């Protein structure tokens, strides 16, 4: 019997060629009863290793290799929970006490954390190999023996290397001398022999060299793969006891990842209260606030939920989330729970969520059930930026730096990064790598055949060129391998006592943040509670809009009280006039809205959920539209399902509906139904799903459901595996959708200002948002050092009833630092004895003198952006020319006394040039749209505008020109590409079939302004047939220069 006691996985980052799952799979194939994973200073791969081993019936042992201060490693393996906690704490210590990437353990660290840990002497990079080579073998082995007492094992590794044997002989001698047990290991770095290639590639990536330059840093052979007991016996034929000893080591290890000692923290309660009683008090109080009086229906629901929460001992968790929500309320931070939590009356009553689950008929079991035996998942949306950071830091403060941390996000090699890094290893020139990675990242991962074509375009023959072929092979193999640990967007883990005893904590790249070494899936698998504090740009937009409305109009808008059935809002949404609106602004949504014509809030809930890959691929979308338009009769599959499916016209769209269907038709309990949903969510459901499907059919048979209906129900439920959007989540999002639509319709200036100030968010660039707002009548004023603040703001506009004019903020001037922009605004606003108010800048010299922070590049940027025109006293070029003088370093003595006179040699910019300068300096323009300048030429040559593409008769051949604002290749669209172009009249939409896209790939992907010839289809869509860059077209017709 042989257990491999020393294995590394890809989570050692660039030091292994196999994923934990592959290692387990191979160990299982080799008939190994158990295997240990010791990644370098991490347990990041431990959970998936453990779970995979459990499924395969193998004993998984988890440890880690610890990097020592001399660069060697010391492999440690916990015997029990105490040992595991020591290991985690030690890794945390060394990671948090050193700059990122420079951590190491000292001998003192090892001595302090040695309890409960087995120490292995390691392989060629191990501490003992290094000691022996430096002549200190006996001294260091004696030290290890002293520290680990009876828990030290001398490790022999044989990879058919001459150099290794010398050390092995010495190790055996020393072990004999000190009466230490010897064991055999292969120090596996990968599962299969072939994985050596990937390991070598990682070695090159780590050492920043090509495979051709790597030389002797590459492995000498491919022997570091997992080996069977037979192979190991042959390898260590003179040390059979060393192979047998692996069984003894495995037997000593009691620790399992099934029990990592995680306990959720108790919530502090006042004397005389328990957590359950406190939660009940708070929920009752909140319910009275929400519902006015607690009706019997509310009481029943509340009691049901509270009893279950008490039974599952989850009161602490709810109180913790309530505490976070309460903190947000106390700081006036907008927050809203989303996800399945919105199914809970308790969450609604506690103010965690904003959707009434009783009114929305939401299903509590989707959120919590007794059978599942796991913590519920509550996500809280917060405004992105400072507000969210405040909440995160509140959690850190409350539970301590070692009691709370963010979950990790495993960043993997994806298309672009994989091409770039593997391309470098194979020595491809930067230019070719860039071109290729751009092509790949633009439209996702390629099929092999497509890759052959793409390589051909770049001048490589994949069929002939060995190097390129090998590159492609390795590129494909490296995909989805972990690259490094990032930070999850908002998941926080909290533990009673020390979290670093459960999982190592390490510093995140972001100041003030720390992360655990597991991602959210790992946490979920081990039942570790996570609270998601997610930053949502739209929440920040709403927050800022409300403030602007208050400041500008002196109106207080309460989002909880805005009319939910406003006609004007729905009319706008029905037109697809939704740019900037949350969740319904995408090209697909805009295309779909005029057909679905939402009229109620629930229609919006459906709208949010339906434009998703699942419903589109599952043909749910088209069925829903046909029924919505009355072209198809509503069919509820079975009369029993009418109440469940009537709101979605018989089309199952939500996870809650799936749960209900199984409960009604097959008599499933809430927990069983949820298990069904989860089984479908897994990529490799296989046996599990088959079993549940059988239970479903059995249940339906018991209920006398005929076979045909059974098939239809099973088919519908199976389709959920691909989409399944929770209704509660859609409802939470729809609230934000409605709020954003309401603000856009009635408070356009404030909403647009807030949108632009919170960019990046949403689908569109600021230039598009501005043009859209202008088309809705909003006026903008140019950026100006004497008027603009750092952010966009609203200024009073002349004339009664005007909603104000938006002043462009200095934020958008490229190259202007935020500090400088703030200093410009602050200095201008500083008190002046003469006026008592603002003290505007009088000239460039004045600006430079009063804002010493400003540098030459910034002055140039401001003048180019037109921010230094001083009430049109000078034109933009004049300002720039003056800036060049003002930017020269000189002392007081040499300051010019009088402002320079106008310069005749400088021509005022034309409108076209000013527009170009705007785009160059700020990427936005409030002047004419670039296409407006070309309109006459275009019109004369039969090119129509975007507005003219709306309502075209079918099959008409047209030519349209515009600025490309969207290029999309949805995974659901069978390689079809969607393009949206913008001009001064609006947007035109195009569908590009794969063959046409291939023909014009370069033009489409490399040019921002296009001329497209196509044939009109339904729904204002044009099927593109021919593409040309506008520059080429304008040159052809002899028009003025178009850059």
């Amino acid at each position, binding site marked *: 019997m042989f257990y491999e006691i020393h294995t590394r996985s890809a989570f050692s980052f660039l030091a292994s060629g196999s994923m934990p799952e592959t290692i387990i799979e191979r160990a299982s194939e080799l008939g190994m009863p158990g295997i240990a994973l010791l990644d370098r200073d991490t347990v990041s791969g431990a959970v998936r290793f453990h779970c995979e081993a459990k499924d395969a019936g193998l004993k998984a042992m988890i440890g880690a290799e610890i990097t020592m201060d001399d660069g060697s490693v010391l492999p440690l393996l916990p015997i029990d929970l105490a040992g595991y906690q020591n290991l985690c704490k030690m890794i945390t210590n060394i990671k948090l006490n050193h700059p990122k990437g420079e951590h190491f353990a000292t001998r003192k660290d090892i001595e302090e954390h040695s309890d409960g840990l087995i120490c292995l002497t390691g392989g060629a990079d191990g501490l003992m190999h290094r000691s022996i080579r430096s002549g200190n073998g006996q001294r260091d082995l004696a030290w290890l023996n002293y520290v680990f007492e009876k828990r030290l094992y001398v490790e022999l590794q044989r990879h058919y290397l001459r150099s290794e044997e010398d050390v092995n002989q010495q190790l055996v001698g020393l072990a004999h001398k000190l009466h230490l047990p010897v064991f055999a290991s292969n120090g596996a770095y990968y599962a299969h022999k072939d994985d050596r*290639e990937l390991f070598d590639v990682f070695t090159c990536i780590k050492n920043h060299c090509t495979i051709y330059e790597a030389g002797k840093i590459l492995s000498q052979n491919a022997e570091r793969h997992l080996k069977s007991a037979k192979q190991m016996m042959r390898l260590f034929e003179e040390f059979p006891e060393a192979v047998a000893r692996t069984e003894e080591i495995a037997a000593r290890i009691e620790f399992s990842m099934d029990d990592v000692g995680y306990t959720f923290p108790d919530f502090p309660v006042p004397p005389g209260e328990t957590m359950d009683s406190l939660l009940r008090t708070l929920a009752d109080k909140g319910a009275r606030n929400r519902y006015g009086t607690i009706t019997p229906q509310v009481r029943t629901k509340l009691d049901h939920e509270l009893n279950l929460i008490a039974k599952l001992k989850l009161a602490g968790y709810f109180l913790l989330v309530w505490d976070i929500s309460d903190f947000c309320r106390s700081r006036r931070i907008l927050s809203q729970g989303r996800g399945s939590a919105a199914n809970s009356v308790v969450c609604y009553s506690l103010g965690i969520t904003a959707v009434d689950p009783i009114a929305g008929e939401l299903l509590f079991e989707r959120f919590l059930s007794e059978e599942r035996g796991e913590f519920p998942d509550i996500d809280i949306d917060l405004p992105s930026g400072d507000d969210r950071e405040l909440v995160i830091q509140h959690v850190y403060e409350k539970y301590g730096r070692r009691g709370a941390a963010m979950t990790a996000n495993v960043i993997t090699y994806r298309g672009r990064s994989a091409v770039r890094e593997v391309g470098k290893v194979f020595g491809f020139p930067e230019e070719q790598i860039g071109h290729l990675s751009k092509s790949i990242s633009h439209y996702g991962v390629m099929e092999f055949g497509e890759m052959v074509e793409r390589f051909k375009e770049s001048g490589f023959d994949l069929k002939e060129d060995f*190097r390129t072929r090998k590159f492609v092979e390795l590129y494909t193999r490296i995909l989805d391998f972990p690259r490094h640990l990032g930070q999850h967007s908002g998941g926080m883990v909290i533990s009673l006592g020390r979290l670093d005893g459960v999982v190592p904590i390490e510093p995140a790249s972001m100041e003030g943040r720390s992360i655990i070494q597991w991602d959210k899936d790992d946490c979920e698998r081990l039942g570790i509670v996570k609270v998601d504090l997610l930053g949502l740009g739209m929440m920040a937009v709403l927050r800022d809009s409300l403030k602007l409305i208050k400041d500008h109009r002196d109106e207080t808008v309460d989002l909880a009280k805005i009319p939910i059935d406003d006609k004007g809002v729905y009319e706008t949404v029905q037109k697809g006039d939704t740019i900037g609106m949350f969740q319904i602004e995408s090209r697909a949504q805009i295309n779909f809205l005029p057909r679905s014509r939402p009229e109620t809030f629930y229609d919006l809930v459906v709208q949010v959920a339906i434009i998703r890959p699942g419903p589109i691929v599952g043909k749910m979308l088209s069925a829903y539209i046909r029924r919505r338009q009355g072209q198809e009769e509503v069919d509820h599959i079975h009369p029993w399902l009418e109440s469940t499916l009537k709101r979605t016209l018989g089309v199952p769209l939500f996870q809650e509906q799936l749960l209900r269907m199984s409960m009604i038709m097959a008599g499933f309990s809430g927990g069983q139904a949820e298990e069904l949903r989860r089984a479908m969510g897994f990529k490799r459901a296989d046996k599990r799903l088959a079993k549940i499907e059988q239970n479903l059919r059995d249940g339906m048979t018991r209920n006398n459901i005929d076979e045909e209906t059974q098939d239809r129900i099973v088919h519908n439920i199976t389709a959920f595996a691909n989409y399944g959007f929770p209704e509660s989540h859609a409802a939470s999002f729809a609230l934000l959708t409605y709020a954003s639509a309401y603000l856009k319709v009635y408070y356009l200036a404030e909403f647009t200002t807030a949108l632009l100030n919170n960019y990046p968010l949403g689908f569109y660039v600021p230039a598009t948002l501005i043009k859209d707002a202008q088309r809705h009548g909003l006026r903008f004023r140019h950026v100006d050092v004497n008027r603009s603040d750092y952010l966009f703001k609203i200024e009073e506009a002349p004339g009664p009833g005007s909603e104000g004019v938006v002043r462009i903020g200095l934020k958008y001037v490229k190259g202007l630092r935020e500090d400088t922009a703030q200093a410009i605004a602050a200095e201008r606003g500083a008190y002046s004895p003469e006026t008592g108010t603002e003290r505007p800048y009088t000239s460039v010299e004045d600006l430079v003198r009063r804002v010493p922070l400003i540098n030459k590049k910034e002055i140039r940027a401001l003048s180019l952006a037109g921010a230094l025109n001083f009430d049109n006293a000078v034109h933009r070029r004049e300002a720039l020319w003056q800036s060049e003088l003002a930017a020269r370093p000189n002392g007081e003595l040499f300051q010019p006394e009088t402002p320079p006179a106008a310069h005749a040699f400088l021509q005022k910019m034309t409108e076209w040039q000013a527009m170009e300068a705007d785009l160059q300096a700020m990427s936005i323009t409030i002047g004419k749209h670039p296409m407006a300048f070309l309109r006459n030429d275009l019109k004369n040559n039969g090119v129509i505008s975007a507005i003219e593409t709306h309502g075209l008769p079918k099959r008409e051949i047209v030519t349209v020109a515009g600025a490309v604002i969207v290029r999309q290749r949805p995974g659901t669209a069978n390689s079809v590409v969607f393009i949206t172009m913008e001009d001064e009249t609006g947007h035109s939409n195009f569908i590009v079939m794969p063959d046409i896209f291939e023909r014009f790939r370069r033009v489409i992907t490399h040019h921002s302004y296009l001329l497209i010839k196509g044939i009109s289809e339904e729904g204002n869509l044009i099927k593109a047939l021919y593409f040309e860059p506008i520059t080429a077209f304008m040159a052809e017709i002899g028009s003025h220069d178009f850059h």
Partner: protein
Amino acid sequence: MSKLYACIVSEGGELAVLAEQFAYRIEAIDGGILFDVSGLENRIGTPTQIARSIKLEMDARGIDGALVVAANARTAELYARSREGVTVVAEDEHLPLPLEALGMDGDTLKVFHALGLESTADLKAIPENELIARYGSEFRATLDLIDQNGLHILTPNLKEHRITWDHGLDNAVEDFEQLIFILSHGLGKVLEETQHFGFSSEQLDISLSLDDKTMANYSIKLSFPTCDRNFWLKLINLRIGNNPPPAAISAIRLVCHFARPRAIERGLFAATRPEPESLLLTVDKIKKIVGNENVGVPVLVDQRLPESFDLDASQLPLGRERTDERNIRPVVALTHFNPPLLATITIKDGRLTYLRTQHFGGPVTEYGGAWMQSSQWWTRGFWQQMEWDVEVDGKRIYRLARTADGWFVTGGYD
């Protein structure tokens, strides 16, 4: 008399040779050549006629590129880099150029473009004091460049650096050794002339025109400079003798490249060591016996290959002695067999028992291994090999390898 400069920017061709036809003050510039043609007015005529002459020479030599003749060296270069064909710029003439040609920094260029300035003509429209006030007095150099004012800087950097000796034979000679006398004469001349310039030489190029209309070229490079005619002669004889020309010789060209003379300074008690000349001759004599490719310096290969070192035939041994006495660990020396010895191995019960080669053989009394190596999987040259260290007949230990071609003894441990 006014100055006149020519500049050629071309991707290739013998620009220096061409320039030598017209000037003695020549500056090689990046991607071209700049030369002083002042004074050629008397010989050739107007700047336009000079330009025409240079162009004719360019055409004759197959040189394609831009040619500019101007009164200022830098102006000539500036125009040559910005225009195509032949341009003659009169002393007070100004031809507009795009501002990019002035080589100013990118930010300033962007500002000029934003100001609506596109060419040197636009820039000249701005009063000089305005420009100087903004961009400092150093900007005057840019303006001078446009105006062909300022310093006529040309830094000759193409000097004579070699001596050539040519000799044609009335009748082609089959045996190179017959030419030694003539070669000795030519060698004497070039070395004498080299010394006359105050130089020595560490490179000689010998080109032999052959009867079959082909050429045989030899380049002899030393690691030290010398003007020792006898030494050079012996070396030439050995090198050409090792690799004789394939046909009868009809003409000889000898090119002697200049090098700084050797400075020899030795202490009074310096140990006697062989002169480098005699060492080199000895090496060449060995080469003559064993072949050029089999003599050189062993160099470690930083690649995972079956052979851990390579033989660099272009290098000479450095002759450094081992000075690190601190490392007291015993060193096992391996004598590498080149070529490896084909071996026959007897295996009994999975163990190596007997080894035989053409030169030795015997029972395998002890062995270590197998050791396995493989690499180069990223090329078609993927290889893998197994090795053993075998003690034959209790006497000597050998390195035994098994490759795809069979069993080989690749070396022996001393």
